[in-house]
């Protein structure tokens, strides 16, 4: 297993903030331990020389014409019926029927 720089507790908190997660005092050390274990395993990738290898976002790219030209054609830009608004709004925790309602946005 190759070297990787250990994730600090401060980084765990920073990443949690970025992800809109609130970790409890018990969760933080556990997440730090797990992230370091997983990143230690991931560090194996550094054994490979990938200079000049194109990155692949999904399989369509590598198959070239097979999926890219045919499988990912966008549909026609035409007006079609969509989901019923009332049915969609009924799924929301708080709504006035037209808009989703949320707590105060401006905090200061």
């Amino acid at each position: 297993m190759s070297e990787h720089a250990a994730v600090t507790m401060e980084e765990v908190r920073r990443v949690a903030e970025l992800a809109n997660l609130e970790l409890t005092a018990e969760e933080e050390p556990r997440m730090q331990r797990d992230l370091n274990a997983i990143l230690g395993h991931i560090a194996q990738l550094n054994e490979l020389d990938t200079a000049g290898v194109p990155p692949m976002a999904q399989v369509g790219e590598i198959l070239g014409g097979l999926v890219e030209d045919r499988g990912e054609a966008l549909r026609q830009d035409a007006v079609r019926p969509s989901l019923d608004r009332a049915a969609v709004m009924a799924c929301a925790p708080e709504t006035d029927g037209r808009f989703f309602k949320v707590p105060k946005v401006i905090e200061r």
Partner: protein
Amino acid sequence: MELESLTMDAARAAIASGEVTATALAELHYGRIAADDGKINSFLALSRERAMTQAAKIDGMVAKGESLPPLAGIPVGIKDVLTMKGSPATAGSLILKGYRPPYDATVVAKLEAAGAVLLGKLNCDEFAMGSSNENSAYGPVRNPRALDRVPGGSSGGSAAAVAANFAVATLGTDTGGSIRQPAAFCGVVGVLPTYGRVSRYGLIAFASSLDRVGPFAKNVKDAATVLQVIAGKDVMDATSSDQPVEDYVGGLSRPVEGLRIGVPEEYFGEGLDPEIRTAIDGAIADLKTAGCVVKPVSLPHTKYAIPTYYVIATAEASSNLSRFDGVRFGLRSEEAKTLSAMFKKTRDAGFGAEVKRRILLGTYALSAGYYDAYYRKAQQVRTLLTRDFLTAFDEVDVLVAPVTPTPAFKLGEKTDDPVQMYLADIYSVAASLAGICGVSVPCGETKDGLPIGVQVMGRHFDEATMLRVAQAVETGPSFCGRKRL
């Protein structure tokens, strides 16, 4: 009626001849669920009203002598990451508790249009993240073949429901092995179709470049029948392919003689259980007997599949799961007085530990300063892993390998060590990353009676050849440890 041996052909024949009604068949399955699912925990919700309405419709068609669609009256179950209009869709998470989506996933609508009777929603790891079904917020699923063991994951409920005869077939999803691995652990057939073969409209997304929908069934022919129904281009999913859908069921009767079978050496290394090795060797010997040409091949980057997967899948998950914020559906924490606090408190209360772990990892891998080292690097290795397969498929028609390094493990055995849990998918993630198709077929059992699966992997969009080889394994002479269906 014996549910244990009830294949689709048998069910269809019984319904068409009037030996059983679709209504009675649905009731039989609901009865079995009521009797036995207390100890398995495979169903999270039953859609009885919808099922019985559909069954009555099929019975009406039989009474009028109308021609019946391919899945007429077949009781099926749906993994809870797929939407069914008006039924709960929790994805195994508290954050979607109470959500009843107002639309059907395309695959659900297609099954029903083909006559299937939709029994309900099946338990799974939260947002399909897991290899043991122990990450469900609604309790673990137990393996019907050994109740102290996991059914595999993340589609544990889908595999267990077929193994326990609660449904004739089910749908699951596979992102890194979540169909093939539970199929192997529970002794049923599970198909991972090629990326783009089956629509994902109505699938609650985990990792969009990897997620796929596929069937579980009691045998290869039934799985092929379901795949036939759900495959094809969908205008609602831009990643679905318009490659023509082949006749999978009809293709099964073609001989396998002369097909070239590749055996990837990297899938038979250290860590492979000797009993599984023996069973896979038996399956390969059967294929040889049937006239296949067996060749060793190499997929040299295999050992990098797990680390590659855990960068890409978590990066995509961190993005996909940002939609769960308490605004449009599901849970909202009522404690918070401001919007940003509401996001955090809702997500803290709604997500389980594994989901948080993966969101954190993915966010870390995508964050400023780490993107090139992790995400870009993993995408490059993904190219190498895919090239491995394309090179091998120049020489052979399919690949045959184990699905898992061990049989089903015990509940609680790996929950404290995420890396060990991730390694349960060591033989399944490479095919996921490369987008090729795969199937797990029962090929034996251990001395303790635990099922063993063999994996057949096929070229992109060549499910027909893959299923044909899978059926040859299923009906081969080596595997005598289990009652034939």
